[in-house]
Structures are given as structure tokens and as C-alpha cells.
């Protein structure tokens, strides 16, 4: 499959969404640790800390340029049934990366609905709430201009 086709496939978009939710979850994954690890698995790539070169665009929309690096931790696990789970998460939390990879593997299996309902949706809701709170706080600083009466007439 071509990478662009792959990118647009609905199952890929679903997976991108949950991987994004997991990448932002951080410590919020800890309470799910026992459930996520309640399976046989091995590390194809043990959690590994590195960095990704972040690119920007000139004027926000133009040609790409290299902006600076960010720390990233990645991990790949394989469950006993052969499913492979991946994670790429900002920061240097190895436990987070391992749990996120495990969750990605679980989410590709027959229990997908279960994991979406118990893990992804609650995390996504918390993340939405945080964003909404940031936006609402910023909204209090929106300037409401009014023009003073001018003296000419």
C-alpha cells in the first residue's frame, strides 16, 4: 500500500487518533498498567529515549526548515498472538512509552471496542477538557475595542 493511501484509510485515521491520545496521556496511563500488562508480550524495541528534529514552515505555511529538537521515547512490543504495538511519545518517560505501545497492540485486536471505551475515550475526554479550559482562560483576555466619541461634529 502506498503511504498516502495508508494515511487516508479510515482504520489508519482511527489508529492515528488513539496513538495521539496515548502520546499525550503521560501519567494518566499508570492506573491502566495492570490491565495493559495482563498479557504475555515481549519487547521488540525496549523503550528508547532519543530526539526528533522538529521542522517549521517559513511564514507558517511555506518551505520547511529545521527548527530544533525535542526529546522523544519510542517502544515496540509484540503480544503472544503476534500483534505489534508501537509508541512514539514526547518526553523521556520510558514507562509511558511501554504502556502506550501495549495499548496500541491491544487496540488492534478483537477487544478494540473495550479498549476504546475504557481507555481511549476517557483519556480523550480529559484532554479535550484541558484544551477547552485553556481556550476559555485565553478568551478572558480578548480585547473588546470601542471607539471614543470623536470631537469633529
Amino acid at each position, binding site marked *: 500500500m502506498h503511504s498516502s493511501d495508508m494515511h487516508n484509510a479510515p482504520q489508519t485515521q482511527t489508529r*492515528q487518533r488513539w496513538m495521539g491520545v496515548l502520546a499525550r496521556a503521560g501519567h494518566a496511563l499508570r492506573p491502566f498498567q495492570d490491565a495493559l500488562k495482563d498479557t504475555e508480550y515481549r519487547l521488540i524495541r525496549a523503550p528508547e529515549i532519543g530526539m526528533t528534529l*522538529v521542522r517549521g514552515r517559513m511564514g507558517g505555511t511555506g*518551505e520547511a*526548515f529545521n527548527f530544533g529538537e525535542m526529546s522523544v521515547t519510542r517502544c515496540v512490543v509484540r503480544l503472544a498472538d503476534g500483534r505489534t504495538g508501537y509508541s512514539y511519545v514526547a518526553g523521556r518517560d520510558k514507562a509511558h512509552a511501554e504502556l502506550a505501545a501495549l495499548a496500541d497492540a491491544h487496540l488492534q485486536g478483537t477487544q478494540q471496542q473495550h479498549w476504546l471505551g475504557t481507555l481511549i475515550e476517557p483519556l480523550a475526554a480529559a484532554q479535550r477538557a484541558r484544551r477547552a479550559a485553556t481556550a*476559555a482562560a485565553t478568551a478572558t*483576555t480578548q480585547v473588546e475595542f470601542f471607539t471614543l466619541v470623536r470631537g469633529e461634529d
Partner: protein
Amino acid sequence: MYVAVKGGERAIDNAHLLLAKMRRGDTSIPELTVEQVRQQMPLAVARVMSEGSLYDSELAALAIKQAAGDLMEAIFLLRAYRTTLPRFGSSLPLDTTQMLLSRRISATFKDLPGGQLLGPTFDYTHRLLDFALLAEGEHPGPQVDATAQLESCPRVLDLLAAEGLLARERPSAAEVPDMTREPLDFPTSRAQRLQALARGDEGFLLALGYSTQRGYGRNHPFAGEIRIGEVEVWIEPEELGFAVPLGDIEITECEMVNQFVGGKGIEPQFTRGYGLAFGYAERKAMGMALVDRSLRAGEYAEEVEGPAQQEEFVLMHCDNVEAAGFVSHLKLPHYVDFQSELELIRKLRKQAEAPMQAAAQENRA
């Protein structure tokens, strides 16, 4: 000539111990935690991340603590650490138009879609010391309407571009140069310059930006738009075959718009300067945008008359790790070098004095 000298080991060890003691200060005062630095000095953390060229707020805070608050030393520490990390590829270019904004202002249009969002800012403060901060206090922030939402904020410069008064920035498929792998070679591309400026010293870029407005380079800028907020970072790992989000980072973006009167076949129009920095770093992003624009002199056939327009001067001196390193090296023992200089000066003095003494004797005679 360099001669190896030994004997400083004990002195150096003790100097390090004394440094640690100085950093800790009065032990009757609780020790500062890294998390406190991260939470309560976010702007220092942002500067260290930008110029250290590594987005990691915990490490930047640790570096600040270790450097006893010397931000340039902290930047050096972070740069050194980043060289130990393997690189997992490059991100897709950030889509800053989709930022979760915490601040967005424009000096070019009062009423603009999405509005002016001040966010947390030092602007409009009176710069009077707040003695209330000498005591602990609660800072709950403003009354927030939890249901309030932000309108969508299109890019301000797109409004001008739509009128054809400003060139559109278009993506290109060109390979992105990386100065951390390929050393700079002059003349540089704009992509190389922006990478160097993004790591560049805030004070240096600010001063150069200021110089362009005092007449060292023709530049008449307006802050077209400044945005601060969180943006998603995506990477496309080879083994996956599709892109995935890594999480969010906080960035500051500044688009300067500059008047350009036209000439040499180019129509009168506005031109752009772009600044981008990690974290909340408005001054850095503005300085960078000014210098980005001034370094585009060649593109607009402008006369190069100020230091801010000279790419070799700007790019070779904007990195404070390099600058501090070179200046620091002057502290290294130059005992032998200096001995030979000393002898030379004494000899020259003697030669200069000999005729004078002869003349003096003649006068006496």
C-alpha cells in the same frame, strides 16, 4: 606553543565543591526543586530550550538549577546532553495555523477574525516591583466562563496575501538543510538561516533587530501577528508507513511585515520576516523575525549597509555556546605565549629607548 602543566587537580576538585556549595546557598532555606523551576520559571525554561535546541522542559529546568541560574551555562549543558541522544528522524513541518492559542495579537489590524487575545503578558504592566511577591500568595487568575470558546484565528498575513500585497509562502519539495549535520556554507539558504537564528542568542538577535530600526539597514517592520500556543508534532516512522502525533509542544511564532518600496524589477509590496521559538518567547521570536527579514536583502536587491544584513556576521556570531566557548578559552593558560609576547615588547621598548637615550646624551653634551 602549548606546554602541558599539571598540579591543579586538587584545586579543581575543591573549586567544583565550592561551586556546589554556592549553588545551594543558605542551607536553612529549603532547596529549590527542578519541578519548581519548571513550573515557576517557564520563560527561563523556554529560553534554555530554544537556544539549547532541545524541547524538554524538565531537562531545561535541571540545567538551570545546575547552572545556578546562569542561562547561558544551562543552554550549554542542554546542547551537550542533546549530542548524546540518537535522532529518530524529523517531524512533519508544524502546522502552526492549528495552534491551541494562549496569546495572539496583531499590530497591523485592530479588528481581525478571531480577535486580539492578550493571554498572559508583561505588556501593560507598570514595571513596578510587586512587593506582594515577597510573601507567598494565591494567584487564582481571572474569572473564567468555562463555556467560552475561541473563534477561529486565520493567519493575519494571509489577509494581505489574498489582496496580492504580500508574497504567499508556499511549501516546496526541496531537501531541508540541517546545520547540525552539514556546517554552514556561504551564501546560505533561508532555511539554513532560520535554523541558525532559532538557536541564536536572544540578546544578540534583539540588538541586531533594534539596529535595523536605528538606520543600520532599511527595515520598516510591523508585528503582523504574534501567536503563542500549543501545536501538535507529527512524525512518520519508516516502520509504520503513516504519520502519528507525538504530543504537543508550546511555541511562539512571529510574523513581521515590512514595507518594501519596490525597485530593480520588483513591485512595491510588503515582505515577510519569520520567527519561531520553543515555549513562551516573544522577544526572541520578534528579534528572529526582524533579522530573518534583514538577511533577505539580497533577495530584494537591497543595498547591504548594516551588520544585521550581513549573513556571515550574523550567523557566525549568533550562537552563544560558540561565542561563550571562544571567549572562555582566553582563560586557558597562555603562559608560554604570553612570555614570548612579553619578551618581544621588552625588546621593542629597548630598541625604542636606545635612540632616545642617545639623543638625551647629545643634548646634555
